[in-house]
Structure formats: C-alpha cells, structure tokens
C-alpha cells in the first residue's frame, strides 16, 4: 500500500490494466446486482433493465423500424448531428473574431467587454427567451449552442493572439506584410491547432446545450428521444442512447486530436 502514493512508482503492465478497468468493473457489477434484485421483486421492472433488455432496446431503436417506419437511432443521430454541425460551423467564426480582437486595438475595444459579459450569461437560462424570439424550430436550438460557446472560443482566440510575441509582428511588417497578412499568415496558423483543442474541450458543453434544446421542443433528435421515452420509463432505450452519445463524443474528441497530431506535427505536446 505504501507504494501506491510514491511519485517514482512504476506499475507493471498488469497492474496498470487492472487498476484502469477497476472502476468500470465495479460500476457494471453494482448495476447488474441492482438490476437483478429489482427483477426478483418485479420481473417486469423497467427502471434498471438487464443487459439483454438493453440490447433488445438497442435493436428496436437501430434495426427495427418503429410505428412510423423510421429507424429511430439513425434519424435522431442525423438530426442532432445537423444541429451540432451547423453550430460548430458558426462557432469556428469565433476564431477569426478572436484573432482580430487580439491584433487590432479598435476591434478589441469594440468587442471585448461585450463578449466577456456575454460569456457569463448561463446559456440555459436564456432558452425560454430564445424560444420566444426564434420560435421552437432549429434556429433557437442552434442559437442556444452558439450563445453558450461562441464567446468562450472567441475570448480564448483573443488571448492566444495577444500572446504572440510582438517581435514576430514587427519582423513581418519589416518584411512588407500587410495587416491582413499578419493576421492570416502569421498569427492564425500558429494558434489554429490550439483553437482546435479549445473547441474539443467545449464539445461537452455543446452537447449539453444541444440535448437541453432538443428535450424542450423538437420532433426528432437524440435529446428529444430520451425525453419522450421517459414517459414509457424506457430505460432500456435511454441507457443505450446515453452510451451511444458518449461514444460519438469520444469519437469526435479523438478525431480532433488525431487531426491536430497529423496536420500540425510541429505543435508541442
């Protein structure tokens, strides 16, 4: 036990593996135990479905068409992905804005204070207002994600742009670069991989806002489905959906990291 807290400990491969999966095993075991006892008391229990029930739920969502003939998992994923994609596309615009703020003092004066204020507004709290202004369609849901994350990304880009040593900018100016070129050929390429990382770290917040928007007013989508099947107490659909979303987020996160590693080899780890 003493060696558990040693800074120069060198766990064997076996030990690392065992410890890494330990919590997963404990969680799954606890769940299976709970599910077993609930089923002993009530064989039709819906609150903690067994593994085979969840597999069946997954089958019903992904492979068998439902009452309207849709394959729910896929149309939900497509709808949510469309909203997510549009929101990310708009959020990418925060990067050039942040760069502009970091380089041009007039631009900074115009945007900085406003963005700092906007950043502190808890996005979910303005959702009812968004519904009133933009209606209950796609626009309000995308607006929610954008309002929640855009200021954060813009301010981060601003900070990074400002931290580029001024000597570089002077060097570029000496060599005849225009203001435009300084921004887009000197500063932006340097900070872009770090910005990808920032966006990657905000994926969780974006997903959260997407689900919130969908749960409140939608006809299709991952968040919508989870909140509607709550009425059925259909944990055998909800839990697979949650795992599916986690998996998708994992994939997106990993993909961005891969892009950074491949295209921007020069970025320090």
């Amino acid at each position, binding site marked *: 036990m003493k060696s558990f807290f040693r800074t120069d400990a060198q766990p064997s491969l076996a030990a690392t593996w065992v410890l890494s999966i330990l919590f997963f095993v404990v969680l799954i075991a606890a769940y299976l135990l709970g599910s077993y006892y609930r089923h002993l008391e009530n064989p*039709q229990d819906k609150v903690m479905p067994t593994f085979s029930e969840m597999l069946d739920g997954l089958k019903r969502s992904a492979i068998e068409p439902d009452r309207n003939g849709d394959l729910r998992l896929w149309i939900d994923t497509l709808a949510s992905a469309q909203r997510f994609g549009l929101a990310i596309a708009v959020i990418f615009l925060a990067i050039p804005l942040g760069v502009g703020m970091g380089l041009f003092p007039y631009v900074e004066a115009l945007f900085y204070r406003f963005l700092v204020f906007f950043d502190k507004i808890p996005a979910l709290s303005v959702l009812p207002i968004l519904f009133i202004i933009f209606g209950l369609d796609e626009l309000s849901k995308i607006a929610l994600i954008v309002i929640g994350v855009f200021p954060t990304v813009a301010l981060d880009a601003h900070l990074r742009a400002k931290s580029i040593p001024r000597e570089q900018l002077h060097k570029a100016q000496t060599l005849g670069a225009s203001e435009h070129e300084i921004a887009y050929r000197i500063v932006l390429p340097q900070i872009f991989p770090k910005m990808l990382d920032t966006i990657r770290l905000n994926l969780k917040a974006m997903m959260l806002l997407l689900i919130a928007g969908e749960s409140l*007013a939608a006809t299709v989508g991952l968040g919508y489905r989870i909140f509607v099947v709550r009425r*059925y107490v259909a944990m055998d659909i909800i839990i697979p959906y949650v795992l599916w979303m986690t998996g998708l987020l994992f994939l997106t996160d990993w993909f961005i990291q891969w892009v950074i590693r491949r295209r921007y080899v020069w970025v320090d780890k």
Partner: protein
Amino acid sequence: MPRCRWLVATMLITVVVSALPQMVLAKDRFSLAISIYAGWMPWYYAKDQGILKKWAERQKISIDVVEMDYIPSVEAFVAGKVDAAVMTNMEALAMPAKAGLDTTVLIVGDYSNGNDALLVRGIPEVKGLKGTEVYLVELSVSHYLLARALEMHGVKESELKVVNTSDSDIAPAFIANKSQKAVVTWNPMVMHIEQTPGVSKIFDSSKIPGEILDLLVVNTKLLNDEARFAEALVGAWYEVMSLMSQRGPEADKAMTAMAQRANASLNEYKGQLRTTAMFWTPTAASDYARSAEIKEKMDFVRNFCFTHGLLGEDARSVDVVGISYPDGTIQGDGRNVKLRFDTRFVDKAKAGQPRQD
C-alpha cells in the same frame, strides 16, 4: 497516520448514526409525492395546515409530503422512492402499472371538465388541423385529448404533425410566435393563452367528461401490508373536501391559501375549479369508481396507450395490462392485473362523513 484514521472513523460513524433513525422507523414513515394542479391543491393545503399530520398521528404513523414536478413525481413512484403519488388515470396505467408495479387507485379526486384544451389561431374547427403542427407534451394527457378530438372528427393523427414541447415553455412560445397555429395544454397555461387576441378554443375536456381522471394512487403491496397509510390519506382528503365544498368564508380562506400555492389569484383558482369536476364526497367518488361509465372511459384511455406504444413497444394487445374494478370485473389480462380501483377506504370514510346539502 493515526489522525487520518480518526477522521475516517468519525465520518463513518456520523453517516451510520444519521442513517439509523431511517432504518428503525422505516415501517412507520410513508411518503406522498404531489405536484401543482388545480385538483391537487387540496394536498398542499392539507400539508401546510397540518391536517395530514393530524390524521397521520391518529394512525400512529408519519407521512412525508414531497413537492415535485409532475412527471418526476410519477417516476419517483414507479421507482419505489415514494409510497403514494397524485397522477391521472393515463399515467397510472402507462407508467407504474405498465412497468409492473401493482398500483391501487385509492381516491378518484376529480375529472378534467375543460381544464385541458386545444387552442388555435385561425382554424375554425378540428377538421382544419390537417397539415398543421400541433404543439403539446407528447404522450401526455394533452396528446390523449388531441387523439380523442381527432377521433371524434374523423381526422387521423398522421394527417398532422405533433411537436413535443415541454410544459414550461409551451405557453410563452405560443403566445409570442404568431406562426404557431395549434397548441394543446392544461390549466393554468390554457387560461394565459386564451387571453391572447386571435386565439380560440375549438376542443376541450368538457367534451370528453370523465375520461381524464385525477387520482391518488398507492403502492398495492404497501396498502395490503399497512392500511393505516390509506386511512390517514383518505381522512385528510375528505376533511379538506368538505371544507372546500361548503360555501362561505372558511372555504374561501382555504381556497385563497391554495390559490397562493398555485401562484394564482383566488378568482383564477376558482375559475380553474369550475373546469374541474371534483368528487366532493366519498359517496360521489365511490359511486363513480363503481359505475359502468368508468370502465368505458378507461377503455378509451387504455386503447390510446396501446396504439401509442405506452403499454410497451412490443405489447401484443391492449389487454396486456389488467385493470380491476371494485365489483371484481377485470379489463385485460386477468393474470397481470396491475391497476386496481379500490373503494374500500373511501367507503369507510362514507360512514363518518358530515351530512351534505
């Protein structure tokens, strides 16, 4: 590290000691979940004025009243976290009963007699809903109301589009967005929306009386083990009922308190009560639960639940969940009775009720 061990030991002991009372009193402590709705405000009154406490003490038990949002309260009942809850007949069938939790309807409190409504902009009648987007809480009583309205006017649900909208946003969004043409919801949202110019009501629950019932349900197993809980609940409820149903300053005072809890004025609350057909006396409630009418109405409800997948996506027929009535009739599978209308306790309360004129 002796200090560390002491700290851990103290924490463990504190946790165990604070859990002890719960473990010891487990059998005498019961819980009831309530949520805001015109017909359920009497429970808030019974809680605040100590009426429920008084009845519980007479039975030598204690009852915790938990205030929640509607669906979470039903979910808590399904998960066994509370022993009794208020809900409509549709939820009672589609959530606990269908999930295998044997549920008894202890009290039939009232039925919605206009509290649920379909409101539109520029559509003269139900047939005109074809091709529109209707905003409502999907698979709730609003959805049921729409389905019955469509049934009564020969329109199919596939001819329009249902947009799931949470109850907290449905009213402000409809009021602000003139492009929304149809909405189905309940009071007090209906009242607020009706006040908007250009909005009219083309269908409501008074056209389907007795179908949307508001109930107090209890876990059947608990009821069979422990009748005291039921006696206390029934006693407290009818005390408040008799107080409210007599006209006069006492009743008004009680209703003002209830209106305040529901965030409404006394007149607004009385307005909501007008569209709620309360069963003021144990006789009224018991008679309805024993009638042939209730079986007809429950049949509509269970068919809605079945066709919308609320009885289980792979349910083979509407009979999959059995419903039993006080006279012994069973609707559905007799081997899987999970929803029971039981008038034993309400009948006992009849004997003690004061004479009503």
